C-alpha cells in the first residue's frame, strides 16, 4: 500500500519538476515548483517526519514561493518577455547539465543500500529533533543562525545604499 503511494508521489514530484523546467511561462514554472514542494512534503510524511513536512510547507511553499510569485508578478514576466539565447549558450548549458547528470549517476552506481535502522517510537517528533539539534548538533545549528543573520544584514545594507 505504502509502496504504491510512494510511486505515485514520486511520479508527481518528478513530473512537476520536469514541467517546471519545460514551461515557457515563469508563473507556470513557479506553480509546478510549488506542486513539487508539496509532493516532497508528502514524502517526508511517509518517512514519519511530520515536523520536516510541515516546515517544508511553511517555509518553502508558504513563504519563499509566495515571494517568488510576488516578484514575477511585480515584474509582469511572461513567455513573450523571455529573451532568446544564442546557440552557443544552449550547447554549453546542455553540456554542463549532462556532465552533472553523469557525475550523479556515477556516484549512485557503486553505492550500496544502508541497513535500515529499526523504528524508534517518536522518531520524527519535534521533541526528539529539538534534543538532537540542541545537544549533538549545537555548533552547526548556531553557525546556521549566524549565516542567516549575515544574509539579513547584507540585504539591509544593499537596500540602504542609494
Amino acid at each position, binding site marked *: 500500500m505504502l509502496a504504491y503511494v510512494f510511486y505515485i508521489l514520486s511520479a508527481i514530484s518528478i513530473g512537476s519538476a520536469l514541467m517546471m523546467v519545460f514551461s515557457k511561462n515563469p508563473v507556470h514554472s513557479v506553480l509546478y515548483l510549488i506542486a513539487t514542494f508539496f509532493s516532497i512534503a508528502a514524502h517526508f510524511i511517509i518517512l514519519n517526519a511530520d515536523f520536516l513536512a510541515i516546515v517544508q510547507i511553511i517555509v518553502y511553499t*508558504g513563504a519563499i514561493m*509566495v*515571494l517568488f510569485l*510576488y516578484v514575477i508578478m511585480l515584474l*509582469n514576466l511572461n513567455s513573450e518577455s523571455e529573451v532568446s539565447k544564442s546557440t552557443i549558450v544552449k550547447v554549453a548549458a546542455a553540456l554542463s547539465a549532462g556532465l552533472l547528470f553523469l557525475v550523479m549517476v556515477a556516484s549512485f552506481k557503486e553505492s550500496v543500500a544502508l541497513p535500515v535502522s529499526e523504528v524508534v517510537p517518536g522518531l520524527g517528533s519535534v521533541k526528539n529533533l529539538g534534543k538532537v539539534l540542541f545537544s549533538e548538533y549545537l555548533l552547526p545549528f548556531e553557525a546556521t543562525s549566524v549565516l542567516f543573520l549575515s544574509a539579513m544584514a547584507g540585504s539591509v545594507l544593499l537596500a540602504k545604499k542609494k
Partner: protein
Amino acid sequence: MEFALIFKILLITIVFVITLVVAMYSTLAERKVAAFLQDRIGPNRAGPFGLLQPLADGVKFFFKEEIIPTHSNKWLFILGPCLAMLTAGMTSAVLPWGDVINIDGVDYMLQGTDINIGILYIFGVTSIGVYGIMIGGWASNNKFSLLGAIRASSQMISYELAMGLSMIAIVMMSGTLSVREIVEQQDGFNWNIWYQPVGFIIFLICSLAETNRAPFDLPECETELVGGYHTEYSSMKLGFYLFSEYINMFISCGVIAAVYFGGYNFPFMHDLGLSDNAVAILGVVAFFAKIIFGIFFFMWIRWTLPRFRYDQLMKLGWQYLIPLAILNVLITGAVMIFTK
C-alpha cells in the same frame, strides 16, 4: 474499530456542514450588524427577520452569467477560487470542538485529528491560503486584479511573521504543539489570555490581516482597485471568494477561541455535578459561543474602523507588531525562568 471510523467520518461531515452554515449565516449577520451599528434595519424581506436571505443570495450567484475573460488564463482563472475554498476548509481538521465523549465505555474524541504539530499545521494552511487570491488575481489579466494579488501576498508575508512570533510565546508556556493539549491546559477559567494579553492583541490584529478583513482589506480595496483581485470574477466563482473569506473568519475565530480563550473549557465546569458527557456537550456549546462572539467582534471592527493606507499597513506590521512580538517572547522566557 468500525464504529470509530464511522464516527470520525460523521464528525468530519458535521464539522464541514457547520462550517458552511456558519459562513452562510455570517453573510447575513454581517449585514444585520452593519445595519445595527448604522441605526438601520437591514435585510428583512426574505423570510422571517430576513433569515432566508443567504439562500436567496446563493440562488442569485448560481443563476448569474458566468464570464471568463478572453485574455485570461482559463485554467488558472478557475483554479483560483477553488484553491481559496480548499485552503479555507482545511484548518478545521485540527481544531478540538469538544472534550472526549464516552459511548458504551469507549472514548470518542470530538476532533478531526490530534496531530502533534497541530499549531504548525494551522500556520502551514494559512501560509498557502494566499495562493487562491494570487493565482486568481494574476490569471484575470487585469491590472487592478494584479495589484490586489500583489498587495495580498505582501500583506500575508508581513503579518505571518508577527502571528507566528505571538504564537511562539504560547508554545513556550504550554510546551506542546498539539492544539488539544494547549486547550486541556486551560482547564476551567485558567485561560491563556490572562497570561498573554499582548500576544493575544498581536494575534488578533494579524488574524484580521490574514483573513483580509477591514481595516486590512487592502487587496479588495474598492475605492482604489475596483474590486481588487476579484474584479473579473462573476457568478459562483465570485461567490466562492466571498464565501471563503467568511469560512476563514469562522476558522480564525475558532483558533483564537481554542488558543487564548480556553476552547471548550468554561468556568466552574467541574462544579456543576453533571456527568462527563453532559459537560463535554456543554463545552461544545461554550466553544461555539466563543467563536460566534469572535465573529461578531470581527464585524464590529469592520464597521467601526476606517481602512488603513498601504504604507501604514506595512509600517504597523514591520515596525510595531514584529518588535512587540519579539519583546513578548523575550519577556515570557524571562518570566518562565524566574518563576520556575
